[in-house]
């Protein structure tokens, strides 16, 4: 009995092609079982049109979380009371006819490295297990102003360091399509939550692929904006020159909607771009102009699975049929991307994480006789092995005598990678590639081999290194039923074009309408 209800709740009664308008033309209550099948945009519209209350939507998601998340462990923490209160506040605004924000009443989740006054901000680390931020990240304030209801904070690889969410101090998140598999990472909690419809949409952060890779592995849309488009204020820093916050959503429209809310200048972030952001919804549905799509040969070599290659080839064919010109391009320095990334990111991380020292806040050891031991024991106890590994790597790379050979050389590679993209974008408007070489892998499959894990990011890191936008959207499923993602890479501030292209593809496919179904078998098998 319990199992069938679980099954029904999780998959929905009718998981394809829901005619929303038809459903809502009747009594609102008919929607209740289908709320989780609505996109954030649809929810916002129905709530604004008083066809659905935010409380109903919030309640439905909280119930799903209660039922499903014990298996997935996508959330580190949920805020039932606060979320319902926030939903009620939105409902009151609706009934009073007050102006509503674009996300009014929409239940959302935050990656747990985004500071919020509500709840804890743990970064899935023992170090910050009980840390409560006294301030809200800029994106959190912007979501609040837009009327979003925050359901909770989602799991991640500790301090966003990882590609599988297995590095969480609180245990791994599971892939909703197959719970023996990883959801990807580091924004694995947000990706799994959106894919399993435990929230309408979520925010993630992406330093080397941490939005796009889990989005691909969980079959959702993930967008890493141009560096500087979204304020990093309140994002717990991993690698400051690479980090960006971005939307993780069920579909392309939701990504555009969220980006509209979170993008734009912030005086609190010196690296935020001073010009106002575009309206990403404006031309979303209109057919993009003649587009030249570049296919970088370096992204289609050894190590790419046949199934992924096939899915990308089909997508290329689709774009061709829709008038796009396909251009072969070359990004010759791609192969140095991982090496450069794993010098730059740990170097910055070693400095960014120096503040977690047991002195001012966060975990403090009980076993220290002097200051040095206070530092070393607090950090040894507070940080997991991957974080410690990267701190050591980065400290080494910045050390006197090694700086030139590592950090400086990596910065030169960074410049070369940027120049690769500059050249490529002279002959094409956007680049299309697989997001990951393969579909989701089993938990534990790579956790003993850091280098294999690092190579998960091979297609995604160059985007952060160059500071350009990247986006992953679902483009098929493997024979084993796991999602495949494809990646768009564009010149800086080309989010509008990427979103329109993605929308063009999505309009001809319905991968994003699928909701994970096989969870029951794998959950019971696990």
């Amino acid at each position, binding site marked *: 009995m319990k199992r069938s209800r679980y099954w029904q709740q999780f998959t929905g009664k009718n998981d394809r092609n829901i005619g929303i308008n038809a459903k809502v033309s009747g009594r609102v209550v008919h929607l209740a079982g289908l709320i989780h099948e609505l996109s954030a945009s649809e929810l916002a519209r129905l709530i604004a049109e008083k066809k659905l209350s935010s409380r109903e939507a919030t309640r439905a998601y909280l119930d799903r979380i209660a039922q499903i998340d014990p298996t997935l462990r996508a959330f580190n923490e949920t805020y039932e009371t606060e979320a319902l209160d926030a939903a009620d506040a939105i409902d009151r605004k609706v009934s009073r006819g007050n102006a509503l924000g674009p996300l009014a009443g929409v239940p959302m989740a935050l990656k747990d490295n985004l500071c919020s006054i509500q709840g804890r901000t743990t970064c899935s680390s023992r170090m910050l297990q009980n840390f409560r931020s006294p*301030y809200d990240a800029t994106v959190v304030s912007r979501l609040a102003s837009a009327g979003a209801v925050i359901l909770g904070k989602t799991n991640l690889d500790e301090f966003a360091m990882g590609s599988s969410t297995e590095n969480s101090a609180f245990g791994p998140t599971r892939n909703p399509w197959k719970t023996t598999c990883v959801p990807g990472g580091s924004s694995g909690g947000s990706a799994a939550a959106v894919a399993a419809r435990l929230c309408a949409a979520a925010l993630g952060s992406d330093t080397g692929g941490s939005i796009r890779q889990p989005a691909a592995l969980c079959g959702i849309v993930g967008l890493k904006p141009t560096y500087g488009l979204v304020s990093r204020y309140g994002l717990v820093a991993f690698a400051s020159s690479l980090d960006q916050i971005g939307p993780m959503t069920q579909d392309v429209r939701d990504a555009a909607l969220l980006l509209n809310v979170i993008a734009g200048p912030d005086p609190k972030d*010196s*690296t935020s771009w001073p010009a106002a952001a575009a309206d990403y919804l404006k031309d979303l549905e209109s057919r993009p102009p003649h587009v030249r799509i570049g296919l970088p040969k370096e992204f289609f070599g050894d190590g790419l699975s046949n199934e992924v290659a096939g899915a990308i080839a089909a997508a290329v064919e689709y774009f061709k049929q829709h008038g796009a010109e396909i251009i072969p391009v070359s990004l010759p320095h791609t192969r140095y991307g991982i090496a450069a990334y794993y010098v730059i990111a740990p170097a910055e991380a070693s*400095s960014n994480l120096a*503040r977690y020292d047991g002195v001012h806040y966060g975990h403090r050891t009980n076993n220290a006789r002097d200051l040095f031991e206070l530092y070393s024991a607090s950090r040894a106890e507070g940080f997991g092995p991957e974080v410690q590994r990267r701190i050591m790597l980065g400290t080494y790379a910045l*050390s006197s005598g090694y700086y030139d050979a590592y950090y400086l050389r990596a910065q030169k590679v960074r410049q070369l990678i940027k120049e690769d993209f500059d050249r490529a974008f002279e002959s094409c408007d956007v680049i299309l590639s697989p997001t990951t070489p393969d579909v989701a892998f089993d938990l534990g499959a790579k956790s003993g081999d850091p280098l294999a894990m690092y190579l998960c990011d091979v297609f995604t890191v160059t985007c952060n290194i160059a500071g350009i936008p990247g986006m992953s959207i679902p483009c098929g499923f493997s024979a084993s039923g796991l999602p495949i993602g494809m990646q768009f890479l564009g010149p800086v501030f080309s989010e509008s074009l990427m979103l329109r292209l993605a929308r063009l593809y999505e309009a001809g496919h319905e991968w994003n309408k699928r909701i994970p179904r096989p969870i029951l078998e794998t959950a019971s098998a696990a």
Partner: protein
Amino acid sequence: MNQPEYKVLIGMEIHVQLATASKMFTGAPCGGTQDANTQVDGVVLGLPGVLPVINRRAVEMAMMVGLALGCRIASITKWDRKSYYYPDLPKNYQISQYDQPLCGAGAVDITLPDGSIKTIRIRRAHLEEDAGKLLHEAGHAVSMVDLNRAGTPLLEIVTEPDFSSPDEARIFGEELRQICRYLGVSQGIMQQGHMRFEPNINLHIFQDGSVFKTAISEIKNLNSFRSVERACTYEIRRQLSQFMTDRTAALSEPKTTRGWDDDKGCTTLQRSKEDAHDYRYFPDPDLVPLRIAPEWIHTIQETLIELPMARRLRYEKLGLSAKDAAALVDERSVSDLFDAAVMLHASPRRTANLLLGPAAKVANQRTAEKGSPVLISDLGITPEQYTHLSGMMEDGTVSASAAVTIFETLCSGEEKDPLVIAQKAGLVQVRDTSTTQAWVNEAIGRNPQAVLDFKNNPKKRQASLGFLRGAVMKLSQGKADPKLVGELLESHLNSQS
């Protein structure tokens, strides 16, 4: 062994706290002596997720000092992280400037005690953030951290090793303090740590036709001019005596960092270069490089005022003594008052006398009464009043002693016109010859002995003349013009002989 010939080389690093309203990289307030950890925010505390934003005013103040020191202002400057672990440094890195400082090479003149002028080269000056403070209470097993000072803008100025004696280093420090006070970038209160000095010292010793260079030692965190001079003097002696007793060690020892013990009057070894920090400098990715347009530099240049050294020289040209010139320049507001009065054609000497005499006296009295500093410029006397009063002295309307009385009355604020005060108090000098002659006659008549002394005893001539002059002034109740009295007395006495 005879003491060899040697040359002293001293360079200095000086940290100046800039008196901005808010901190270097955030809006938390700066300065003041508040309760511990009240002048902080998330950025000062180094909370997760916070980001630094450059304080424009701090950059401008640093540019002002840089320009005053003749430094070339960089067209692009950037920020670097300097990493080290210490509990008063919340992020465990300090945002500083490593290889692209805001201010490049420059030079500034100082006046040596013999009146000669020496040029000191500036290597660079860069902006950074200050750390907090650790409070260790005796008998407690724990240390407390106060982060009020953390994040305060600091300008670190580095000179070339151009000081060839401890007093040159001190004089430079004093000059720099005055420049900063003039520019309004620091109050220069040494006791509050507004300026901190780190001299580095070594010797070039000439012996047996060779030059021996002793190892450089750097003395950390001196916060008074006296300690700069004393520590340098001590260090020269120490290096010299080490050279004489253990030449190999004195020459081969690596650069050391030493602390100054003010009570014992000696420096102590803190660390040698072998165990120096690896600061792991790298560009701060949270801050973008700052591009400084020539127009911005120009705007700042326009706001620069005449610096203390130039003012002193100008005052000396106006006929003031070096001592008076220095005393006037010491406080910018006093110097400004003086300049304003001189602009109104006041006599420089008489105005200086008023400012450094009665004005200083009243200011000191009020300071003592109030228990907090009252400056000459706080007395409420306008340049016009100084000009008026000094003019009355100059043209003989009142005597110098009457001017003191008039000035004190002016300070009471009851009457603003010095002439009205002089008239009301009967302090206007009588320069009418017949009236004065009558007083002279009367004085001579009453004091025959003095007259006799004047005529008969050349040794007592001056004394008796003075006595008679005093008698005339007394008869006139101080109103007689001393100059006229002198003339009339002398002609009267000489004609009688």
